[in-house]
């Protein structure tokens, strides 16, 4: 089936309720294209979605999916993948889901290096609750709950990932459709935790980090002679707060995904119809 899968097979017949022009349309299209291009089909794909505008993605895509509790999408994806290494797992959420309420899980999912893809739709704002500061909002970004701005530096998710021992760190822009899909595709093909922070502008509540802003300021690492296997170079790009980059910042060539490191390779859904044959040995251990 997989050879003739088209990206539209990953589209559900539910019409998105995102605002017209929302960056999440482009983010989702790129995810679907990347899944199709990497030989996946809806029956072997599991999408885990967080809470927020971005979390609605599970409804608009067609695959096995779970739309869960705010901030806990990565743990769900981790469980899905560990139990079924044969399933392609893609976790998608927003900057609030991933870097605020779920920040603890982000750090540990990164270092656990489970072979799945994490797409964060970063619009630097809380959209679904109508415009409050997010962990990636600029320190002077005025919102209903931060009238003078958060007055705290934004989280640098890429640096957080690097410090947590990430094996794949990338960033894309939802409006640059081709590059975005390519970058997601690289994350899927990476052996380990493929993390992509996607600039996915909110056209309703963020008048600072707009399409125009990213178009004018984005630097594509493809044009910069950047070597993602060079840790020091990656560090330089990730910590450079003067520019907005697109591309794969870092990829550890020697990444060993969790299932290989821990020998978790079985399909755990298959069990016998009674206790295991040698189960009385478990009892006899207690002699």
């Amino acid at each position, binding site marked *: 089936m997989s050879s003739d899968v088209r990206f539209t097979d990953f589209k559900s017949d539910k019409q998105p309720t995102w605002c017209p022009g929302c960056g999440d349309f482009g983010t989702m299209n790129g995810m679907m294209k990347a899944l199709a291009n990497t030989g996946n089909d809806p029956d072997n794909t599991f999408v885990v979605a967080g809470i927020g505008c971005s979390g609605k993605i599970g409804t608009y895509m067609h695959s096995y999916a779970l739309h869960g509790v705010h*901030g806990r999408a990565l743990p769900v994806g981790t*469980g899905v993948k560990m139990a079924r290494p044969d399933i392609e797992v893609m976790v998608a959420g927003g900057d609030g889901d991933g870097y605020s309420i779920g920040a603890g899980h982000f750090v540990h999912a990164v270092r656990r290096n489970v072979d799945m893809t994490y797409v964060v739709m970063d619009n630097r704002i809380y959209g679904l609750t109508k415009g409050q500061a997010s962990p990636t909002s600029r320190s002077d970004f005025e919102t209903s709950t931060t009238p003078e701005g958060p007055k705290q530096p934004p989280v640098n998710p890429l640096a957080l990932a690097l410090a947590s021992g990430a094996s794949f760190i990338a960033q894309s822009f939802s409006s640059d459709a081709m590059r975005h899909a390519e970058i997601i595709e690289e994350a899927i093909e990476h052996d380990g935790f493929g993390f992509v922070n996607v600039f996915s502008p909110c056209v309703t509540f963020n008048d600072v980090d707009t399409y125009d802003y990213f178009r004018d300021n984005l630097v594509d690492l493809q044009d910069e002679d950047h070597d993602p296997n060079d840790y020091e170079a990656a560090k330089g790009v990730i910590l450079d707060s003067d520019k907005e980059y697109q591309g794969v910042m870092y990829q550890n060539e020697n990444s060993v995904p969790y299932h290989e490191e821990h020998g978790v390779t079985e399909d755990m859904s298959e069990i016998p119809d009674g206790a295991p044959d040698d189960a009385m040995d478990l009892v006899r251990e207690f002699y």
Partner: protein
Amino acid sequence: MGGKAQHNMAEDLNWAVGGEAGDGIDSTGKIFAQALSRAGRHVFTSKDFASRIRGGYTSYKIRTSVEQVQSVVDRLDILVALTQRTIDENLDELHEGSAIIYDGERSWEAEIPDEMTAVDVPLKSLAEEAGGAIMRNIVALGAACEITGFDVEYLDEALEKRFGGKGSKIVENNKEAARVGQEYVRENYDLDHLGYNIETTDSDYVLLNGNEAIGMGALAAGCRFYAGYPITPATSIMEYLTGRIDDYGGHVVQAEDELSAINMALGAARSGARSMTATSGAGIDLMTETFGLVATSETPLVITDVQRSGPSTGMPTKQEQGDLNMALYGGHGEVPRFVVAPTSITECFWKTVEAFNLAEKYQTPVFLVSDLAMSVTEQTFPPEAFDMDEVEIDRGKLVDDDEVDEWLDAQGHFRAHAVTEDGVSPRAIPGTTDAAHMSTGLEHDELGRRTEEEDERVHQVDKRYRKVETAREQEDWDYREFGNADAENLIISWGSNEGALVEALEYLEDDGIDVRVISVPYIYPRPDLTEEIEAAADTIVVECNATGQFADVIERDVLTRVKRINKYTGVRFKADELADAITEKLTEEVPA
């Protein structure tokens, strides 16, 4: 002081070792318990420990008899005291026939009441002679063997089991240490075994605690995924499964917190694995966040709560049955669920197996509610008590590729939350062809897609609760019964109090008091006890909490008042103590 000594019907021996945390109290006690088990004797152990790595009083008590023992009692016959506090802490349980083994060469001056037998054994010096001071507790075990006339050779197998991994020299030294202790008492004291006759039998028993039984039950039931975050007293389930579950292709993952643990377990269950998490105390509070999602996404998940003393950090190493309301009602909104509370260590095994079947048959969260007392108590059983041939697996409406068609709507969508007569929908796991679907914590339609449409909402709420009603009709929700079924007074208990109650019956019988005991393992759904309570003159509900959470539930079910016995000291009920409390309660007026 040993007020119930005259009740010693089972010819039991009550033995304890106590000292500072870090003194090896636990392993010393376990070795003696295993030795008694190897001698074909039943044992029941209890531990008293503080939540510290080192420092603080800790003890390990063993009650042993040739007959099955299910409780500790307020009586201590032989005490190995490594500190004065060990003696002081146990004064009310020691009696004039008690013997206390201590090391007179140590810096503390043992103050031992005159009427007791003080057995001064230079534990440290003798251990050094045998090869190292570290073996002083083993010297004490040898001394205890001599005092009671228990053959020291029974210790050998337990020592091999404990120290085998450290090489034969260590094992031999320990065996020697035991014999040195035995010899010392034999040569320096003329105790004539204090009148004890430690009978042995040919029976082969296994010795395990409630958490090990839960872990073993999970493996028997096909559990393949466990995620947890270490917390006393639930951690030993995780430790049991680690390594062993891998033999069956499963995996244990230590999550970054309980929020993550339950969501990982949920993810694995969505993948089709039989999956479990376990926690205690504040851990279950964190997991509460996800209870509703498990229920609305209709994910089969076993959530184990090994209750400890709360609220907040409470007394983390102490007993309590304080989470009943949390298990019944935890989570915002209305969350359909099953709540099962094993009443004994063997039941920890069987109810775990049952919990996995209930979870998959009804695609509903199952709360397996145990407690600290059961988790640290080791008890002997014949191995047949865990007959693996009796384990049945029922995976419910799990559909394969061929069965998907009948569950598709006109547009070819899989109806993962189909509204059915029994409330149970088909379950398709990832990889099943043409059954890709979403599930969500949002209210949804049959396809799992968000809806706020009134009819859809009502259909989904009703179908989720209909699963519980179906289960109520189709499954057994029986109680366990002890004592005299025709007695006019009724005692009701839930969870781990069963053993102490069963033994309390003997004390009550001695005093001419006849009672019927109902031990309830199912909290939701639960058996209807209306008839039983209406037939009784007095009903007393026994539980380890302050407010009587189960008593409240029973009163509401039956619309009548009950008497209550509550204990919230952090220590489980003892058989003789319960007998006294019941006797007293029966003389009280029924509450208005």
